[in-house]
């Protein structure tokens, strides 16, 4: 390839990508504003990068970047000179091609007669600078909806025909992007008049239409070097790699439509505020309503079109009521239309993966997460363990030293241990460890407390191995593998009221949960612990119960058989709350105990209106390895050690409580 000197000279006409020096960008901006065009581009306003009228390079957000997450958007100083070092912001180009308020028709009434006059079209001439691949795709989607026939929106068509598009290749991605999954990016491929890729010293320029080529010919460009081309390609590839494939889209249409009765819709409805932000931030949503303005005499009127949303209350209303009055129905309508039925109507996805609905949802609902939950491409993955466990192989154990022992009841001991591996003091509440003494079979024991640099195990001496463990003294050593399994999902309980129901030694795996709750008590609502044991002497952690009460945990105890000093309730643990006045429909429940007790409890909780998706149980099965290799703990489609031991009732469905499964 011939290298042409980068100095300015007579305008060359290179084949292939051209390069525009950073210092010459203003020339492009000026060209875009010829012919009475108004230039719209990104600019920093308040705390966001929005699209607005610009004239000079100084108007662009030099050195600014953005950080996006569900329900969160922040700009920050990148510490460099990049002009396009961010992705899409709250405004979309829809603001100009499909404005939020457009007068349509003027009408008047005079006696019997009426007359109607369309408001004349007067589309402004515009140039858009900074259109991303997902946005190009969105313009294409709206083109199909509004102009591909059989009926055409004249205002949209006129505006659209008067726009010159300068696309900008994304050189970074936000955590909310998923254009890759929707097949719309990150590469800018078509639909643009010009496309720019920003490098350190300037821009790769590519023309995509005759209008674009006409502009390129008037720019002080030179051919791009191989290094520059390679750099641009590598940047785009890095963006693609960073985004990955968050929503497997193959077959999404069918999978989603098969889930119109998924319980997840109801769960979303608890979080979704029906505010409509997602639909108005979305660059492809096109639903509108009309609004009428009349004078006091009522003789003249102007009918205008405003953005509306399928989330708004009157949207599906007719004289008899609304077709879509329930919360969950509206969210379902939006998601299924956008990702499924849009295909049937328009032959493509309605979503271009720009992520605005994720960022600008004030409560942070993430459509990617919802799609993967409602219509997953593969069975639910095993719960991710919180830390890499120590000794994650059937052949290994790490040693741990007993540093203290405490007899909780006649047959139950708590051992305090200092392990030789840090992972065992950093697990989550509800995880367990495989415990090994030389010559004995390995046992799964729930971790009953985490300590700095250590942990506690509460063990009931029910067989030879456990009785041996109970007889250990300070300085004795044992072998451990863990922490294993998943943990109680405390994050689902933030801001909610909690119910913890347990019996006997079932309190042991719940104690770290209670520790975690008390450590950040104000993140949770009312917390009620219902605990039953056979006799008063069998109640664990008696000394801690008072401390928990003063940590603002309500504690209710019951026993099957009372002694002379017992003044509390007698009977099964469900008696403590089956007549309670609280309504469980907003609550989360954590249940652990003998299987029969858990079944009765779950049934009572359901009667108190707790939904299955928020009742969690922990299951116990025979385990030899604790890491899903020995096959013993298989139940249905799960391995208890690897997919559990904590499950929601919604996950278990009707395999919970079925004999012999």
């Amino acid at each position: 390839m011939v290298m042409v000197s980068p100095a300015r000279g007579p305008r060359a006409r290179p084949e292939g990508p051209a390069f525009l020096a950073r210092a010459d960008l203003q020339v492009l901006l000026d060209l875009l504003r010829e012919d009475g065009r108004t230039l719209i581009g990104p600019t920093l306003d308040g705390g966001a990068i929005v699209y607005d009228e610009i004239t000079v390079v100084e108007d662009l957000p030099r050195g600014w970047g953005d950080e996006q997450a569900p329900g969160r958007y922040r700009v920050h100083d990148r510490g460099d000179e990049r002009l396009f070092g961010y992705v899409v912001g709250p405004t979309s180009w829809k603001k100009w091609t499909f404005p939020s308020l457009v007068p349509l028709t003027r009408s008047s009434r005079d006696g019997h007669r009426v007359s109607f006059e369309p408001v004349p079209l007067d589309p402004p001439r515009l140039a858009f600078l900074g259109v991303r691949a997902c946005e190009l795709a969105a313009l294409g989607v709206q083109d199909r909806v509004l102009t591909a026939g059989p009926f055409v929106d004249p205002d949209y068509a006129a505006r659209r025909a008067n726009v010159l598009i300068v696309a900008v290749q994304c050189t970074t991605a936000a955590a909310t992007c998923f254009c890759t999954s929707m097949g719309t990016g990150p590469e800018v491929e078509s639909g643009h008049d010009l496309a720019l890729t920003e490098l350190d010293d300037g821009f790769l320029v590519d023309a995509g239409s005759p209008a674009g080529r006409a502009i390129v010919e008037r720019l002080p460009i030179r051919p791009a070097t191989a290094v520059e081309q390679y750099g641009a390609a590598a940047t785009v590839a890095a963006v693609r790699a960073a985004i990955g494939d968050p929503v497997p889209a193959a077959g999404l249409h069918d999978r989603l439509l098969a889930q119109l009765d998924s319980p997840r819709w109801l769960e979303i409805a608890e979080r979704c505020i029906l505010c409509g932000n997602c639909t108005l931030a979305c660059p492809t949503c096109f639903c509108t309503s009309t609004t009428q303005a009349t004078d006091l005499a009522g003789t003249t009127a102007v009918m205008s079109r405003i953005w509306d949303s399928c989330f708004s209350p009157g949207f599906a209303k007719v004289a008899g009521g609304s077709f879509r009055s329930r919360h969950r129905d509206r969210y379902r309508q939006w998601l299924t239309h956008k990702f499924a039925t849009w295909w049937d109507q328009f032959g493509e996805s309605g979503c271009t993966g720009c992520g605005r609905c994720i960022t600008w949802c004030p409560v942070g609902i993430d459509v990617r997460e919802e799609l993967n939950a409602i219509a997953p491409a593969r069975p639910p993955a095993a719960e991710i363990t919180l830390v890499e466990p120590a000794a994650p192989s059937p052949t290994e154990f790490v040693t741990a030293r007993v540093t203290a022992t405490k007899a909780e009841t006649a047959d139950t001991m708590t051992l305090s241990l200092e392990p030789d591996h840090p992972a065992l003091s950093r697990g989550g509440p509800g995880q367990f460890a495989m415990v090994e003494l030389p010559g004995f079979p390995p046992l799964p024991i729930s971790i009953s407390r985490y300590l700095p640099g250590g942990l506690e195990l509460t063990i009931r001496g029910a067989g030879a191995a456990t009785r041996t463990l109970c007889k250990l003294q300070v300085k004795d050593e044992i072998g451990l593998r863990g922490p294993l399994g998943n943990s109680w999902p405390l994050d689902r309980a933030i801001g909610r009221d909690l119910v913890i129901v347990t019996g006997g030694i079932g309190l042991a795996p719940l104690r770290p949960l209670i520790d975690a709750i008390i450590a950040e008590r104000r993140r949770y609502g009312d917390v009620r612990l219902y605990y039953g044991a056979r006799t008063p002497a069998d109640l664990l952690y008696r000394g801690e119960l008072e401390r928990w009460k003063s940590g603002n945990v309500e504690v209710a105890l019951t026993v099957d058989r009372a002694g002379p000093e017992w003044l509390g309730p007698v009977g099964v643990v469900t008696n403590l709350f089956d007549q309670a006045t609280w309504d469980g429909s907003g609550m989360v429940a954590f249940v652990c105990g003998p299987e029969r007790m858990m079944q009765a409890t779950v049934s009572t909780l359901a009667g108190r209106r707790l939904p299955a998706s928020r009742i969690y149980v922990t299951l116990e099965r025979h385990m030899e390895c604790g890491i899903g290799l020995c096959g013993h703990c298989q139940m249905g489609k799960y391995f208890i050690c690897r997919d559990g031991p904590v499950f929601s009732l919604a996950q278990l469905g009707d395999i919970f409580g079925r004999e012999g499964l």
Partner: protein
Amino acid sequence: MTHGRVAARPRVGVVKFASCDGCQLTILDLEDELLSIVEHFDIIDFPEATSARSAGPYDVLFVEGSVSEPAHLDRIVELRRRSRYLVTIGACATAGGIQALRNWGDHDAFRASVYAQPEFIHSLATSTPIAEHVPVDAELRGCPIDPAQLVELLTALSTGRRPQLRDEAVCMECKRRGVVCVMVSRGIPCLGQVTQTGCGAICPRFGRGCYGCFGPRERANAAGLSRHLQAAGDRPREEVGRLFAGFTAYAEPFRTMVTELGGTRQARATGAVEVAPTGGGNARQ
């Protein structure tokens, strides 16, 4: 609610219960339209503006203010009897107003703390919206009402169509106007998602969160928003409760939120919700 033109030149009254007069003033603040309005409507009773009085009957009666005194109970019933079309205007009339915060509390303690001889003060234990006492034909929400909505209502009355008062979230108006969401971009708690639009999204436009003065919208998921503010915003329950304890606190579901989260002193006194020190200040933002 009846539609169709109310009358050729409707006889209009404007009356006041417990309120600040701001909503009535909004009528007088329609400077461009006022003289045209009085041509289309016969203002027969509007004490703030005219000494001409009339006891009705009214074709349209605008009612500002909440029911707050024993004398109000009979008065509103009598006014309803004399009105064809009764419109409540403002947060006091539609939701009980900011003074409804006393509904959670010990009313006698309220009176005693301000007046040394409280037995001479005749006020009810509660401040309640007009609709709790008589049927209401239309309402204009807001604290104060929005002038454009007022004109829309008058135009609708004049022409015989249903007033276009959209029951959707303030968020819709923010997005239509291109206002950047203060909650997403600055972490400022905003009730706009659960509040009925009508104001033109003033507070987010002016860089602060909506405080719900137009009252809860249809299907307001206040519980969902409250959970989110506590979890993601790491805010104590009581602070979220106070957010709902504003000018429309008494309207559901804000009312339940105030009670459950301890949004007023009295609601807190009955629960075990602690007052977290605010640190006082705006450094968080």
